């Protein structure tokens, strides 16, 4: 099947938008203005103003003279491009490849799409009708090439040029329909070359000599001799599935069914290719033009429908269907090779690499945030706060052994809490200490164990740690920051609780 392109032209894009926002502007002539070189210049004129002879580029004072009752609004720079982007995104329901085609058009790659609407005429008519319903003045045309569709939308009469007929259809159009820069257009006019019909009969080398390559390129593109590439507004993901709906979907059950169907298709494909997804987006395109989407992430490449469905269903309530969803889109944004499943016969209890466990962790991370899951590995440091590091995943294994030669408390206070002590003998553990208002009498003690703060990481006083046991058998880890001084007692801290 040959390529088919649809070009949509919005003759009054920005003013139509203003009318949509402020319906009272519908019945008045108004223009948008912006300051250019210290002069107010009309940047866009509504159809009524255009009929009165005002064009974009007219100086505002002249326009006011032409139409005394003219309303003037400020133009927002970049509004047109923004609108085109938004409309192009909206057009994704008609085709996966939609591209804004500035300054006032949109291009759709409609190859193989029209049959879903029952033919090209119905397809174009539906798009035009829907855009008109939204208040835009639209002209659209479909042809085999981007150039031809563009020309037909702006200058032609037929909405659909039959396949292979674009060369013929272009002939009676003016040369400006070839998307020429204004300068070349004027020069062609001066030479009497007004229609494309006049242009095609001239030998190409002669045209190149006079007008350069740009004109020839445009001509070749329009005639389909050179392929033109569209840059879609949303890049096409290689793993993407679409599900258009006959009726807009508003219920949770409906959304779930759609999700299940899409997951089935996507996962079958992933399985066939030996891949698994790490992140995925499920999007719904709504009737009112908005989109609703939810994202999931997995710890390991996943291709299990049930698990993925569960991950999505945890977030499904955040998906607002609004007036109804007419197109569902499931996209695997990050796909990785599925590592071969290792069957560990000797570990009956699963272990860290059990797929069930990674599925559980995905669910927990999906609901509670990936930042809440931690796993720790030993680090080669003596400073207690630094002697373990978070692991990046489940497959990381410790590079060194955990140190158990020194007593370490099972609970560590972070940060250490200051205590009041009675410590009369230098480098001896305190006799008494008061922690949170409770007085503890030290009965047994071990220490000191001096730990330096590793000057190459951070400078500071060392800590002398003592393990102490009070009269009730409770065991604590205390330290004195820096050297002993009899007059300073604020340097003592409680850092941990032993079992």
């Amino acid at each position, binding site marked *: 099947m040959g390529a088919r392109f649809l070009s949509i032209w919005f003759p009054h894009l920005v003013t139509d938008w203003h009318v949509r926002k402020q319906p009272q502007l519908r019945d008045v002539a108004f223009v948008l203005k912006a300051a250019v070189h210290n002069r107010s210049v009309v940047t866009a004129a509504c159809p009524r103003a255009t009929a009165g002879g005002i064009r974009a580029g007219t100086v505002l004072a002249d326009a006011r003279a032409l139409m005394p009752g003219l309303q003037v609004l400020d133009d927002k720079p970049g509004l047109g491009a923004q609108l085109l982007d938004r409309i192009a995104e909206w057009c994704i329901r008609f085709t996966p490849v939609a591209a804004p085609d500035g300054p006032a058009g949109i291009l759709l790659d409609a190859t193989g799409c029209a049959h879903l609407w029952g033919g090209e005429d119905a397809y174009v008519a539906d798009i035009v009708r829907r855009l008109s319903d939204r208040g835009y003045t639209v002209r659209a045309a479909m042809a085999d090439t981007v150039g031809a569709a563009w020309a037909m939308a702006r200058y032609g009469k037929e909405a659909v040029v039959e396949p292979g007929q674009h060369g013929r259809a272009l002939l009676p159009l003016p040369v400006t329909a070839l998307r020429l820069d204004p300068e070349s257009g004027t020069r062609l006019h001066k030479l009497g070359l007004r229609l494309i019909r006049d242009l095609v009969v001239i030998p190409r080398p002669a045209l190149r000599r006079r007008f350069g390559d740009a004109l020839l390129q445009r001509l070749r593109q329009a005639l389909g001799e050179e392929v033109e590439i569209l840059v879609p507004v949303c890049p096409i993901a290689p793993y993407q599935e679409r599900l258009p709906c006959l009726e807009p979907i508003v219920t949770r059950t409906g959304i779930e069914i759609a999700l299940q169907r899409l997951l089935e298709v996507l996962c079958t494909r992933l399985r066939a290719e030996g891949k698994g997804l790490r992140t995925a987006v499920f999007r719904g395109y709504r009737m009112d033009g908005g989109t609703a989407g939810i994202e999931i992430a997995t710890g390991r490449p996943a291709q299990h429908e049930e698990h993925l469905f569960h991950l999505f269903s945890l977030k499904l309530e955040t998906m607002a269907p609004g007036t109804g969803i007419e197109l569902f889109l499931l996209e695997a944004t990050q796909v990785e090779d599925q590592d071969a499943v290792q069957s560990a016969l000797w*570990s009956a209890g*699963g272990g860290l690499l059990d797929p069930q*466990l990674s599925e559980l962790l995905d669910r927990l991370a999906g609901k*509670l945030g990936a930042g*809440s899951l931690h796993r*720790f590995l030993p680090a080669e440091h003596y400073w207690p706060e630094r002697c373990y590091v978070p692991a990046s995943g489940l497959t990381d294994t410790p590079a060194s052994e955990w140190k158990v030669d020194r007593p*370490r408390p*099972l609970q560590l206070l972070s940060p250490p809490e200051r205590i009041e002590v009675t410590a009369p003998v230098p480098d001896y*553990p305190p006799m008494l200490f008061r922690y949170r208002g409770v007085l503890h009498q030290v009965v047994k003690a071990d220490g000191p164990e001096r730990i330096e703060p590793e000057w190459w990481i951070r400078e500071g006083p060392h800590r002398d740690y003592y393990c102490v046991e009070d009269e009730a058998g409770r065991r604590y880890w205390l330290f004195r920051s820096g050297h002993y001084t009899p007059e300073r007692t604020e340097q003592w801290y409680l850092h941990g609780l*032993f079992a």
Partner: protein
Amino acid sequence: MCANTRHTGTPFAKIFSNLALHMLLTNEKADIITRLRQEVLQLQGFKAPLTHLLDDTGLGRINAAFPNGVFPRAALHEFVCAAPEEAAAATAFVAGLLSAFMRRGGAALWVGTGRRIFPPALRAFGLRPEQVIFLDLKKEKDVTWALTEALRCSALSAVVGELSELSFTDSRRFQLAIEASGVPCFALRRRLPATATTAVARWRVRPLASRTEEGLPGLGAPRWEVQLLKVRNGTPGTWELEWAGGRFRHTPKLAAVPAAQTKTG
């Protein structure tokens, strides 16, 4: 009268056989009842002894407090920790139990808010810290949700939850999940429980003064008073335990703690 005399004349043999039949019946009934009891116990998480001989918890005498003399593994255990020091002791006790469950690999999930646990210290209680996945949450509500979700996953060796409140409904939900998956659950509760729960056992672990060789200074091995406050179908009790040499050890009761301060050089 006449009939009576005739009845008294019945041979002893017949009475005896009736009695024997009756006894046989009662025996059968008793058998059925014992069997049913066993089934109920199994359903409640008290598995028959054979299956878990390999994974002895090392609790020794404490096992006798449970029905069948077996530590109920697939069950909800509650630990009452009224003070942070008790929480540390209970954490150590749980870590010791987990190390028995995970001797041959596996993974445990540790769920809680405001985690204080110092992972490297778990190694001293026989547990490999890298086998523990910590889930640090902000809200208590999320903890119960995460626990329920985790207990349904049979790939885990154990689940530990640090909670303040545990309602009866939540504990029932945990119990149902455990019955399906067989994953042990240890709930460390920061507050004294106000309501009943479906926990099979309620424990309290309090630190005790450590023992050192006579006259030697310093601290000994961690020692606790382990109280089994409640146990379903078992007998509650109190024991004194020590963690030494990588396992639990029962210690004789100490007379008194020496008051004098001792210290190493």
